[in-house]
């Protein structure tokens, strides 16, 4: 696998840089713990507005490999945030992580190019697997 851009910019080897967008601090913490143990670099945002700020900050526009986003959030909701991410950074893969076990919604998102629709509670292997798959997709886009 190609060395990720995150590693190139931050100077230390990680498997990739992931932005988690969720309004619940404990959910962000759980995702962070899971992904950091698997060697990823994790940044957090509590809503769509903060996510857009975070994604535009510093090196992030270049170093971000994956966005994991909830959809039920205050201010800018997940759907709007995801639309924005897709327009601004069409090559950054997005994973939806939500409490809604809704097939219709999942299909809608997948059609829009979301790489995975994960329903909480998600097993750590599944979360890590989805992130790893998304990063591979990101690498393919870079080629």
């Amino acid at each position, binding site marked *: 696998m190609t060395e990720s851009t995150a590693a190139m910019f931050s100077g230390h080897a990680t498997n990739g840089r992931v932005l988690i967008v969720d309004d619940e601090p*404990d959910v962000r913490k*759980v995702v962070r713990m899971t992904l950091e143990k698997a060697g990823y670099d994790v940044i957090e945002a509590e809503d769509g507005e903060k996510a857009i700020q975070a994604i535009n900050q510093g090196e992030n526009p270049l170093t971000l490999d994956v966005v994991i986003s909830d959809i*039920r959030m205050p*201010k800018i909701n997940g759907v709007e945030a995801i639309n924005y991410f897709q327009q601004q950074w069409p090559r950054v893969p997005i994973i939806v992580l939500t409490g809604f076990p809704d097939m219709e919604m999942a299909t809608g998102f997948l059609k829009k190019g979301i790489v995975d629709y994960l329903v*909480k509670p*998600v097993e750590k292997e599944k979360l890590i697997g989805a992130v790893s798959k998304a990063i591979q997709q990101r690498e393919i886009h870079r080629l």
Partner: protein
Amino acid sequence: MTVSDSHSHIIILGAGKGGTALLESFLNLPGVRVLGIADKNPAAPGLKLAQLHHIPTSQHPLDLIQKNDIHLIVNVTGDPTLPALLQPYTNPGTEVLGGSASKVLWELIQHQIHVQSQLFQAEKLAGFGTFASGIAHDINNPLYVILAMAEAIQEETDITEIRQQAVSIHEAAKRIQTISQDITQYARASRSQEFVQVHIDKQLNEALKIARFATKFQDITIDKHCQDGLVIYAKPEEILQVFVNLLTNAIQAMEGKGTLTLSTEKQDGYVHVAITDTGCGIPSENLQKIFDPFFTTKAVGKGTGLGLYNVRTIVRKYQGELEVESAIGKGTKFRLVFPCFPSN
């Protein structure tokens, strides 16, 4: 006999369980006007209900039955000798219903009340489909925290971190407990048929807890302007159901984004409640139909078409008023008016 209007004018004797049920039903019948209710027990529940509706009450039947525009006296006191005792004092045009006739009438009304309450319950449970994914969402979030942290804690060696995660697990479990309590409280059938003092603010807050499950998104601003201490005399579950129905519709109309404005105030002995959304609005051709039973614009399985019908039935029962105004693309406002308690 003078007949001032086309209504049937009725006096009820007995304001216990039977008299209250009769009064409650008569209040819903447009062709019937109750001119008074008597019971020797000043604390009888029917007297309180009548006072709320400005219907004359008395402990002595004779105070009420001598008026000259009474068509029917219904005796549900359980005292079979009463009609005969009162006969000399009643006007020739007044019929007195007692004995088995009034018992059959009472049973019919009991049956009607039972059917009505089953209809309310059916609509409430059918409406739960609307909330299912919202409830799942609100449970799945803390459940994820519990499962992931309980797993991580097994390998964690830092005692501060272990403690922090234990606190998070505890908080998440408590959130699930609250959700479970909120749902079961709403879902259960009305336990009590008693009229009690109902605090409008409390019922609105309870209703908000349920109605918020109706949306997948959480981008709704709630703007509350509520006067404290507004009380009506009603069955709490019915008032809760009115608010849950109206708030759920409002939240769904906004499709997860907008402002929900709730306002309550007391004016001239009445409690005024307004529920305003900034949603899609109701087309003018539908405004006349929204209170009809089984009228719905929601997809099959998403709405029973009984929500607003039940809202109107309940509001009418409490001698209240219900109005709606709506503009396409701007939103909808429902205005409710209930008589205050105490009624002065």
